[in-house]
């Protein structure tokens, strides 16, 4: 139990996938313009990532094994693409505006390096099934956390007197950098 908790805290805060591993920056910058959108994106990613972690673990352990290890990345990508496709259809049906707002970033969850990265890290760290699930969930929650906080900050920044050369994406990058600086405060907490 304590182990699971450590994994969860570790992935959400200490080794945050965006702030510390610098993965998944594309949706982090792309879908953080509005708070509501970022929450939805976080939810979608959480769903995909948790599911992908679990299924990837099952495929890796029971289908591929050591013999077919070279198929690992390939099969993970296929699985993720499938789950994303499903999510896409689901969102398109339930919330067309959200679908439009997420735009290209929804199918791009497929190529979100965080989503592929976490199943691969699971294999590297030799997590068991539950650990993989929690690792995936934690990574996704960490992603959602920083995405949502970042979106709220960008909404406020929108109205700030940022000097013209720094307006828009550049001040967002600086903010992400300072946020990452703050997250370094968690360094050393676990392992």
């Amino acid at each position, binding site marked *: 139990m304590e182990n699971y908790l450590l994994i969860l805290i570790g992935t959400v805060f200490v080794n945050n996938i965006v702030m510390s591993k610098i993965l998944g920056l594309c949706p982090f910058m792309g879908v953080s313009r509005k708070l509501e959108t970022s929450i939805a994106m976080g939810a979608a990613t959480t769903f995909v990532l948790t599911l992908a972690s679990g299924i990837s673990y099952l495929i890796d352990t029971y289908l591929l094994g050591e013999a077919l290890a070279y198929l690992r990345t390939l099969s993970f990508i296929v699985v993720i693409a499938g789950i994303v496709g499903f999510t896409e259809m689901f969102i398109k049906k339930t919330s067309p505006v959200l679908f439009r707002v997420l735009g290209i970033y929804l199918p791009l969850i497929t190529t979100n390096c965080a989503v592929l990265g976490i199943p691969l890290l699971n294999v590297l760290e030799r997590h068991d099934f539950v650990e993989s699930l929690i690792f995936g969930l934690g990574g996704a929650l960490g992603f959602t956390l920083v995405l949502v*906080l970042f979106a709220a900050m960008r*909404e406020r920044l929108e109205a*700030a007197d940022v000097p013209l050369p720094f307006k828009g994406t550049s*001040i967002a990058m600086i903010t992400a950098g*300072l946020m990452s*600086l*703050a997250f370094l*405060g968690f360094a*050393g907490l676990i392992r």
Partner: protein
Amino acid sequence: MTGSPHVHVGNTSVAAVMAKVMAALIPGTIAHAWFFGPGIWVSLLLCGLFALVLEALLLRLRGLPLKPFLGDGSVLLTAWLLALSLPTLAPWWLYLIGTLFAVVVAKHLYGGLGQNLFNPAMVGYAALIIGFPAYMTLWPGPIGAVDHSLTLWEAFDLVFAGQGAVSHDAVTAATALDTWRTQTRLGTPVDDILTRPMFGWIGARGHEIVAAMYLLGGLLLLSARVITWHIPVAFLAGIVLTSGALHLIDPAAHADPLFHLFSGAAMLGAFFIATDPVTAASTPRGKLIYAGLAGFLVVVIRTWGAYPDGVAFAVLLMNACVPFIDDYTHPRVFGHKRASKP
């Protein structure tokens, strides 16, 4: 055209607010100089100078008038807080880099006064502790804990030449927080740790008096209604509750709440850093959440983290949460059934 109201309360301005905060810092600063030598005057001078020059430069670059913005005192306050949180005997360029991060990156890239998301002084501090960890331990030992008490001239020598009549080793010492963390991790008994010279009656030697002076200054600010009670109380409560719970669980590994309150930058953080209105939460409930969590994080980082103190990172982390917290803690507006998220 200007509409109503046509009158103003009159006795308040940004400059007055900043001046009151700086006035409240004076007792703490004097205590600091008393216990840790005159180095603080050097770093204060350097930070203030760099800050004013950088601020003027950036205002000029951005085409803004110098007088009202330099005159509002906000940049001096930032420099003062930065100087108080940095070790006093570091080389001069360290103060320059710290001020650079504080004034340029954290403040002016965001549009200057009132627009920044992160506490400028804490950005400066965090940037330095990440970039130059070795220099960030150059804290002079408290009076009585080190053999040599420094003169102003010697302090200048150390800051500008790096070496003078005295070496850094003769006057610097590990802080109480540092000692506690390293020693408890080594398994040294608590009683043994507490007898070391950097520990005082209840907190860190010297620091405890400085902290008491900050507390005094903070109470003055409270009585002058410059700050509200929410942030300091929640911040200190966060520290006390977290450290108290840990201390109850394992007194051998975790210091008692009083030690946490009266060592490091806890008091400075509670009354002067976390209360920076621009970067702190602004709604009453938001302030409690913001400062309470910051206090919690201070203890977490002090206990398990890799840095000498947790205040800067705790405040920066909570700064990042402020827009989100504010969004969801708007109070119930008159005539509405319940508080609603916009």
